[in-house]
Each structure stands twice: as structure tokens, then as C-alpha cells.
């Protein structure tokens, strides 16, 4: 460690615990307690990355989550590697490996740096303006842009870590464990509220905990000592839960918050196995206290981005908390008293301060006087106009400000330095408050936005509420907490506070320069390389809304969401446009406050738990018999059962033929089943289906079509009358839940007078459908007691019966056009009944078939599948199903819409059949149908909805919808494909057995 800048042992750093880590492949050492940033600074490394657009060398700027520059790629291996990790947040651990991002080939020699010299041709909106044309060039640009402009690399292997979600309900949530948060937590918990205190940092106490100045005292103790005692006390309170390393990502309405608790990121890799890495906390709090603190503002001047330029408060933290000097020749640049606090801290530690540049002309606070007393040169009424040093700052030049602060006057003074601290005052961290829907208020005195109107039961306290100094924070806190928590008394009624901080500030958003703005680079958004010049350009080009300027210049659109520079952007806009800051509004801060990993968001919902799926009671049999499955809604349905060497086509052809030639068996358990009971059940069905139901005899089944109120087909299925006031309705597999919901809606809201009860019984029954000419023989073997003669058990009827001792319902209904029986049995007997059918059907070559064969068979018969042959624009008339629409019924859902001027149009798309000129040619589902492809623009008449090769008809068949198709029987149409045209003829949609002879064959 040649460049050790460790200045003084700090109680927050364990110097007995040395940790080695790698940065850009070189090994360094730090101590337990260090962040990667503090450890790098201790090794005198400032340069950590390159900027996004100009590839300018960039260094560590802050000591917290607002860091725009020091973002690194963590880990080497392809599954754990993580981009955009802020070096200021990651705690070092043995074996840590980090590297710079956004530089190629290396951070010290970066080809993209040439952009910096090209910057006159890279103004705001450059990417929009340039890469829009010519479009064909995009491919060429893209390669280089991606290579040189990306922010890090994403992992290429699955994430091996474990993540989880947890719900937390509490009375009071306190966000931020600085001095305000600690006071609030203790007060809340001691008054019996179930309290949760969270902080993103690995320690409690915020910035007060490393405040060692005699100038800030509480009850005559140095503020940090006082706070330490408070912290020790709150740790003993039972109903107070404290979570460190927990960053609140989102604050939604009704006090619902998401927070990420980081559990293993600070541990050596070998200690992380089997442990949860991140936990997403879903917090519902009765009351929320935001004590999120504030962020120091940078100052905007030419070349304010060089490595070695930090926020003044960061320099103070590195020295006080981490015991690291950021430089040996420090200069501070400020417009308020904060930098003098930093100066005092450095001075006490013996760290050299060369000068303080203060925008203010007259400053005589106690802090300033003390600095001057110690012979530190203070330039009052001056500003920095330029900085020098490519990979690290080595010199600044300063000039005097004019009285109005608009110009610089006099001559330049140069000052050598290796570190420059900036303080532009403070910005309350109101991000979470605004996320929750809170409205901000602009405070003119010191140009800050503070919480104005609260949208839920919450308050903001401390510096996030604009109370920046120790006395401001503490004087009102007791009353605020009493009012908010509705309590009588706190421990903080009469604190004795000593705070020597002068609040005057000279706010100049864009500091003047001796150069014209076009020749300067005053960065506003460091991460996205947006400068004040870009903002002014955007305004010149006519952008006015802050949201537009933001997108055009990309200000505030980086991973840090512009935490440092957004206020300056607003300030520059309002100054340039001559509008008032408070009236301009602010840009919206969106969740998450700091980036979340995808792992945290998905938690345990990965792999097979990504989405739940439903299995039928016969599922395992399908698996054992090598079925391929398809997803239908959440169901896994057997799709086809390939035998050796069979592909899907061969399997489906075989299954389809077997079902018509002898016997097929289908697991139809997924069909939705709704049990309908009540004295008004028949009337209810009359109202929800298009056809009439009152006269359906007990023991009979009927097919029904359900419409939406707009007349469009919504669902279909067979409903059976089990008894006088008892029906069982079947719905499509995918429609089961929504149909039930719709029926309940009508019952509860339109027809509450009807005596009807609906129960979903989909999961209660297994449904086995046996079809084909030999189906009757098979069923007679499975259920010998039942009379299967066509007289006693005709098509569209049902019987209650038993298989052994097990009750079952058998319906004689058909979706294939073959004679078929559907056995419904209590779900847990499903597999054994299925196997009995297989056993009984063995001599008839009973063939299990899946959904694909089912679709083919029904297409041969011209039966529609709702959702495949229909979308939400098809009426029953369009489907040529006029026969199912009752003319006699006074009303049913959708009836009135069937004769709206739009639904009676003759040229609506209507369902038709299609056969190809070449019977071997199978159409593609979704293919367009046209009449004349030669004249342009080609009029699209419709499209193919279902298409198969029918092994039973030995030709290609298809269903489609075509404008005015009903009246086009026999007409020739064209299906234009990529490199050919297919000639088709319009036919009736029923291809097989128009007379329905097979039903009773």
C-alpha cells in the first residue's frame, strides 16, 4: 500500500480485520467497514469509470446511494456478475472483484474518450437527430454504440442466488435511521406502537453519528455521543424492529411500501451459500414517518466532473467515518456554511486544506471565523471557473463574482490541488414522498422543494422536510411526533441544542464563466453526460416542459435518476426561460429509489413456480404415456401422444383416424363446470343463453351460446338439466373463470330477484370422453348396468349411474360428430375410470387423443372453437349459427345488439369453410384471404382461423372468416403467401357427415 491515505483510526473501521479485493484485476487492501469507494480512496484511486457519452474519466463523487459516477461491474463469473453497482454502497468482503464499466479497452486508455473531443458534434438530442436517418445505417451504428456506450454487462447464466418476499404489517414505519429517525422510532415504540425502522446503510445514526464537532451539541454532549446513547437504548425495545441494509424502493398509495433488505451482499462469497440474498419486504404501515435526509448539491461550473471532485459532505464522511483523506491538497468550494464543517473535520485530523472558495461576499459565521483563525485562506465572493487534470484534478482557476452573480470579474487565480469538495446546499430527499402521491411546495428562501400536501397518514421529519440544521431538526420534532402519533409526551421536550451554523446561502444554479457557454462543460447530470449547455440548447430549440427537456437532454434519466442534478436542471430552465421555479413543477421520481435486481422482484417465483399450472386428475397417466402437453389458460392439457418416431403431424393423423374408425378417448376434465341450482335456474339460463331453456326435459342436454351485451360470442358449451331446479353448465376451458364471474355479476347486480345459486365444480370432477363407432361397446363393458340403446339413452341426454360403487354422470354428447359418451366422476376416481376405459377398449384399439386431434375432429364437423374461430367481433349470425338464436324470447344478454345497424351489415366477416385447389396443401392459420392480389392496395377480406389436413377426408380443410362470406359459396379466393399464392374455394364449414348420421351409427 504505497498510497495509503488512511489518516486516523475510526471506530467504524476495524483495522484488525484486513480484507483483500480486486479492482480492475489488481489486488488492494481495505478494512472491515470500508465500502469499495472508501477502500479505493484509501489506496489513492479516484478514477473508477468513464462517462456514458463522452467517456470522460470519472471518479467517486459521493459517499452514498446517490452516486452517479462510481458504478462498477461486480463479480467475474457469468451467473453472478452484476452491473451498475455503486462503489459507494457496496461493503468490501474478502474476494470482492470489481471492474470499471463503460470503458474499452481499459479505464486508463479508453477509445471512446475520443467522443470528448468530438463533443461539439454530440449535442443534446444527438442520438435522436443522428441515428434517425438514414434508417439503413442503424445496423452499422448499433454495433459500435452497444460496444462503447453500454452501462455494464448483464449475467449470461441463470442467477444461482435465492431471493424471497415477505409481508410486514406495522403501526409505524420509519424510513431512515438518522437522528430524526432514531428519535421517531424510540418515541413510537415506547408508546406501544409496533414500529419498524429501516435504513439503507449498514449502521444506524445517519450523518450525525460521525459528527465530532464541538459546534454541534445536544444537552451539552457532542451530537454523535448523544445519539449513540439513544441508539443503544432503542436496540432494547421489544416492539421495535430495526432493519439495516434495507432500502425502501417504492412508496405506493395507502402506505404500501416495497423495500429491499440486503442480507448477504456484504459477506465473503463462501459464507453466502444457501442463504437468502435479498428479501423484498412488502410493508403495509398504518403510519409512515419519512426521515430520509437530504442530498448535498454539487455546483455547476466548467469541468466540474473530474476525478478528485467530490461533494464536500462526502469528503467529510470519508475522513470522519472511514478515516480516509480524499486528498492531500484539498480545496473546498461552497455557497453555504456546510463546507466549513468539512473543513473543520479535516483540520482536526491534520489534513491539509489549501483554500475555501465561497460564492458569498459577506460571511461572518462562527464556523467561518474559526477557519480563518486557523490561517486557511477563504476567497469570499469567488467562483471556480475551470479545473485541470485529465485523470485526476491538479489545478483550479477561480475568479471574482460580480455583484449580481451573473458575471466573473478581475483576473484569474490558479490554485494547485488534488481534491475539490463542492457544496451547493442541500436538497431534501423527497423522492419517496412524491412517489406516494405527495405534492411538493417550493420554498423560495433557500430554493428547495419540501413536502406540501400528504396523500396518506404520513409525515416527513428532519432534513427531508427541509429542516437542515441540528436546531431546526430538534426544536420542532417533539411536537410533530406528538401530533402525528397522538401522544401526550416525548423524551425530547426540552433539549438543549448548540448549533453554530449560518443559514445564508448564495444560490446560483449555473455559475458564470469567463468563456462562452458553448466552450464549457458544466455537467448537470454526470451519469448521462448532460450539461447546462445541453439544457440551454433544448430551450433554444423550443422545449419548455421539464418532462420534455429531461427526455431530450436525458437529464435525470440514468440509473441514479439524477438525484444530484435535477434541481439545477430546473433552476437553469427557469432562469433561462424566465419562469418561476415553483411554477415549473418537477420531474417525477419513479420507483425504485435505487435499482432493484430482477431476482428481488421475482423472489421465489422462478422455474416451475414462475406461474402456477393446473393438472387434471389423469395428468400422471398422460405423462407416463409420453404425451406432449400444451398450455390452455393455466392448464396443462395433453396435446398429442406420439409413438416411436412420430412427429406431431403423424401422431395427430393416427389419433384422428382411430377416433372415427373405432374409438378414441379424451381427457376433458379441464372444461369449466358450473353447478346451477334454484327455482329460477331455467329462467336464468333463458336470459344468459341465446336459445330457449324452459322446455328442456330433465335428463336432457343442450348446446348453448353465450353472448356479451354487445352481441358478440363470448362462450359456448353443453348444459344438462339434472333435475327440475338443477343444471350443470360446461364452459370452454379458458372461459371457466370469466363465465362464472359474468354470471355472478348479472345475478348480483341486474337480477338479484332471481333465486339462483352458482358453484364452480370444475375441479371436483374428472371428465372422460369416449368417442367413435365402438364407443357404445366400450361403455357397456365399463358400465354394464346401463341401457345404452338409442331409445333409452339417445344423443343429448344424460344418466346418473355407478361404476362399481362410484357414482358418476354420463352424458351422451359429442364434440367430434361421432357417437360419444362423457363420463363425469369424482376427481380422485378419474384415473382409475380412465384406465378401465382403456382396458375395456383394448380390443377396439381405443386411442387416447389430445387437444390437437380434438381440434381437427371438430373442424371436420365445422364446430367452432370460441377464441380461435371467433374473436370479440363475431355474432352468432356471423358464425352462420342463426339456428341457435331464439326469435321468441323477449330478451337475453346481447339480443338487442344483434340488430344494431352495424351487426346487420351484410358485409361483416362471416365464418366459412375453405378447401384448397391442391388437396395436399395445408393453409397457415392466420393467413390473409384476398380476392385479387394484383391491385394495390390489396383488400384484405378475412383470414384463416383453423386449418388441418383431414385424414378422414384425405384433403386439406380450413375454417376462416371472410367479408360477406355467407354469400360466396363456391367462389374462388386467394391466400397470398411469402413466395406463392394458394387458390382456395369457399365452402360450407361442415366438411363431414352433414346429416349427422355418425352420431347414431
Amino acid at each position, binding site marked *: 500500500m504505497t498510497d495509503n491515505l488512511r489518516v486516523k483510526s475510526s471506530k467504524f473501521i476495524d483495522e484488525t480485520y484486513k480484507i483483500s479485493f480486486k479492482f480492475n484485476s489488481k489486488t488492494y487492501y481495505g478494512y472491515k467497514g470500508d465500502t469499495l469507494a472508501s477502500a479505493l480512496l484509501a489506496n489513492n484511486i479516484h478514477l473508477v469509470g468513464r462517462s456514458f457519452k463522452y467517456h470522460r474519466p470519472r471518479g467517486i463523487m459521493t459517499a452514498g446511494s446517490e452516486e452517479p459516477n462510481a458504478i462498477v461491474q461486480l463479480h467475474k463469473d457469468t451467473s453472478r456478475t452484476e452491473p451498475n453497482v455503486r462503489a459507494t454502497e457496496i461493503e468490501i468482503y474478502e474476494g470482492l472483484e470489481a471492474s470499471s464499466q463503460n470503458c474499452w479497452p481499459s479505464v486508463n486508455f479508453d477509445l471512446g474518450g475520443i467522443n470528448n473531443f468530438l463533443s461539439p458534434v454530440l449535442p443534446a438530442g444527438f442520438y435522436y437527430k443522428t441515428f434517425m436517418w438514414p434508417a439503413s445505417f442503424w445496423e452499422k451504428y448499433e454495433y459500435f454504440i452497444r460496444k462503447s456506450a453500454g452501462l455494464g454487462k448483464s449475467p449470461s447464466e441463470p442467477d444461482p442466488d435465492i431471493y424471497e418476499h415477505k409481508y410486514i404489517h406495522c403501526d409505524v414505519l420509519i424510513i431512515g435511521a438518522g437522528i430524526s429517525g432514531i428519535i421517531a422510532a424510540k418515541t413510537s415504540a415506547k408508546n406501544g406502537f409496533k414500529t419498524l425502522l429501516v435504513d439503507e446503510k449498514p449502521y444506524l445514526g445517519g450523518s450525525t453519528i460521525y459528527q465530532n464537532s464541538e459546534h454541534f451539541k445536544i444537552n451539552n454532549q457532542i451530537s454523535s455521543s448523544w445519539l449513540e446513547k439513544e441508539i443503544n437504548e432503542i436496540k432494547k425495545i421489544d416492539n421495535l424492529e430495526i432493519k439495516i441494509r434495507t432500502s425502501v424502493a417504492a412508496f405506493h*398509495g*395507502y402506505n*404500501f411500501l416495497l423495500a429491499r433488505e440486503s442480507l448477504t451482499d456484504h459477506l465473503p462469497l463462501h459464507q453466502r451459500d444457501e442463504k437468502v440474498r435479498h428479501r423484498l419486504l412488502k410493508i403495509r404501515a398504518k403510519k409512515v414517518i419519512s426521515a430520509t435526509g437530504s442530498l448535498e448539491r454539487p455546483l455547476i461550473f466548467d469541468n466540474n466532473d473530474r476525478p478528485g471532485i467530490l461533494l464536500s459532505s462526502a469528503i467529510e464522511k470519508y475522513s470522519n467515518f472511514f478515516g480516509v483523506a480524499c486528498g492531500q491538497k484539498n480545496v473546498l468550494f461552497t455557497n453555504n456554511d456546510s463546507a466549513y464543517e468539512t473543513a473543520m473535520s479535516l483540520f482536526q485530523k491534520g489534513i491539509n486544506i489549501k483554500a475555501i472558495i465561497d460564492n458569498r461576499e459577506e460571511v461572518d459565521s462562527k464556523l467561518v471565523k474559526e477557519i480563518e483563525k486557523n490561517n486557511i485562506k477563504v476567497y469570499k465572493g469567488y467562483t471556480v471557473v475551470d479545473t485541470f487534470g485529465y485523470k485526476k484534478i491538479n489545478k483550479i482557476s477561480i475568479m471574482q463574482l460580480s455583484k449580481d452573480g451573473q458575471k466573473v470579474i478581475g483576473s484569474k487565480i490558479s490554485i494547485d490541488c488534488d481534491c475539490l469538495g463542492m457544496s451547493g446546499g442541500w436538497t431534501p430527499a423527497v423522492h419517496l414522498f412524491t412517489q406516494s402521491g405527495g405534492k411538493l411546495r417550493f420554498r423560495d428562501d433557500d430554493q428547495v422543494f419540501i413536502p406540501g400536501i400528504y396523500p396518506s397518514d404520513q409525515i416527513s421529519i428532519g432534513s427531508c422536510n427541509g429542516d437542515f440544521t441540528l436546531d431546526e431538526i430538534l426544536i420542532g420534532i417533539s411536537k410533530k411526533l406528538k401530533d402525528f402519533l397522538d401522544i401526550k409526551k416525548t423524551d425530547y421536550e426540552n433539549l438543549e441544542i448548540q448549533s453554530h451554523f449560518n443559514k445564508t446561502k448564495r444560490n446560483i444554479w449555473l455559475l458564470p464563466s469567463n468563456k462562452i457557454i458553448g466552450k464549457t462543460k458544466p455537467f448537470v447530470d454526470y451519469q448521462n453526460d448532460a450539461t447546462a449547455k445541453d439544457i440551454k440548447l433544448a430551450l433554444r430549440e423550443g422545449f419548455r416542459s421539464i418532462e420534455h427537456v429531461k427526455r431530450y437532454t436525458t437529464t435525470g434519466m440514468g440509473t441514479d435518476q439524477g438525484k444530484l442534478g435535477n434541481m439545477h436542471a430546473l433552476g437553469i430552465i427557469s432562469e433561462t426561460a424566465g419562469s418561476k421555479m415553483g411554477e415549473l413543477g418537477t420531474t417525477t421520481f419513479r420507483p425504485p429509489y435505487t435499482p432493484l435486481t430482477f431476482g428481488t422482484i421475482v423472489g421465489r417465483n422462478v422455474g416451475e413456480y414462475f406461474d402456477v399450472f393446473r393438472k387434471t386428475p389423469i395428468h400422471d397417466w398422460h405423462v407416463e404415456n409420453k404425451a406432449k402437453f400444451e398450455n390452455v389458460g393455466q392448464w396443462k392439457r395433453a396435446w398429442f401422444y406420439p409413438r416411436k418416431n412420430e412427429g406431431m403431424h403423424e401422431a395427430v393423423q393416427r389419433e384422428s383416424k382411430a377416433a372415427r374408425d373405432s374409438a378414441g378417448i379424451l381427457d376433458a376434465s379441464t372444461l369449466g363446470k358450473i353447478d346451477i341450482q334454484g327455482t329460477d335456474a331455467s329462467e336464468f339460463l333463458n336470459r344468459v343463453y341465446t336459445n330457449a331453456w324452459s322446455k328442456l326435459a330433465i335428463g336432457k342436454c343442450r348446446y348453448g351460446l353465450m353472448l356479451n351485451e*354487445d352481441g358478440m360470442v363470448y362462450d359456448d358449451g353443453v348444459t344438462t338439466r339434472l333435475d327440475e331446479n338443477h343444471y350443470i353448465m360446461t364452459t370452454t376451458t379458458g372461459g371457466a373463470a370469466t363465465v362464472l364471474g359474468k354470471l355472478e355479476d348479472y345475478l348480483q347486480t341486474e337480477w338479484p330477484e332471481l333465486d339462483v345459486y352458482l358453484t364452480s365444480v370444475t375441479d371436483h370432477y374428472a371428465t372422460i370422453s369416449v368417442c367413435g363407432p365402438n364407443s357404445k361397446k366400450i361403455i357397456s363393458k365399463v358400465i354394464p348396468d346401463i341401457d345404452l340403446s338409442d331409445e333409452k339413452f339417445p344423443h343429448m341426454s344424460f344418466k346418473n349411474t355407478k361404476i362399481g360403487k362410484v357414482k358418476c354422470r354420463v352424458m351422451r354428447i359429442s364434440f367430434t360428430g361421432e357417437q360419444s359418451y362423457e363420463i363425469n366422476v369424482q376427481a380422485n376416481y378419474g384415473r382409475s375410470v380412465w384406465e378401465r376405459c382403456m382396458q375395456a377398449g383394448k380390443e377396439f384399439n381405443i386411442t387416447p387423443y389430445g387437444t390437437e386431434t380434438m381440434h381437427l375432429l371438430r373442424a371436420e364437423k365445422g364446430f367452432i372453437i370460441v377464441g380461435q374461430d371467433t374473436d370479440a367481433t363475431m355474432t352468432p349470425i356471423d358464425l352462420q349459427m342463426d339456428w341457435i338464436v331464439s326469435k321468441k324470447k323477449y330478451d337475453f344478454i346481447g339480443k338487442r*345488439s344483434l340488430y*344494431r*345497424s352495424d351487426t346487420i351489415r351484410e358485409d361483416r366477416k362471416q365464418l366459412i369453410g375453405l378447401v384448397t385447389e391442391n388437396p395436399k396443401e395445408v393453409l397457415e392459420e392466420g393467413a390473409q384471404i384476398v380476392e385479387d392480389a394484383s391491385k394495390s392496395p390489396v383488400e384484405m377480406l378475412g383470414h384463416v382461423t383453423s386449418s388441418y389436413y383431414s385424414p378422414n377426408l384425405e384433403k386439406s380443410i380450413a375454417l376462416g372468416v371472410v367479408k360477406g362470406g355467407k354469400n360466396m359459396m363456391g367462389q374462388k379466393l386467394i391466400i397470398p403467401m411469402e413466395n406463392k399464392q394458394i387458390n382456395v374455394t369457399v365452402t360450407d364449414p361442415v366438411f363431414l357427415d352433414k346429416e349427422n348420421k355418425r352420431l347414431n351409427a
Partner: protein
Amino acid sequence: MFLIHCPYCGEREQSEFKAGGEAHIVRPKQPTELSDDQWAEYLFMRKNIKGVQFERWVHTHGCRKWFNMVRDTSNDEIKAIYKMGEKPPTKYK
């Protein structure tokens, strides 16, 4: 995410509920008597208010009951909840 007070179950997370559009649109008793325009008025026309809006909600993953809600769409404040068939609170009209 809202906390919704189901009139039958009590306070529950929004994820248990579904919104069902504007409330108090009564299905015409005699649709066949209506002109196309009158039917279209019932079928298609819905308000989209910035401010206080009357809505239907259903406790899908709970009691499955429909109820009405008065909600300020500008800040998502739920002002009132009442059962189907009950009169809407007049003060928000």
C-alpha cells in the same frame, strides 16, 4: 395498492379485488323498445372522470360479492363503499 373495505369481509388488499367499471348504469328492462342510439348509450358510453367517480368493484378472491365504491381518481382516495342496491351517498354527487 389500495386497502379496500369489503362490506362483507372487511379490509383487504387491492389484489383480492377487481374493478368493474362505472356504477349505477342500469340494464334497460326492455331493450327491444330502444333505438340504436339509446341502446348504444347504455352499451358504450362511460364517464372517465378526474375526480370523484362512482365505480363497481368485486371481491374476486374473497366473498365474490359486488359492491359500489366512490373514489377520487385524482388521488385514489376511497370516499365511500356501499352494497349493491343501496343508494349512493348524496354528498359526492
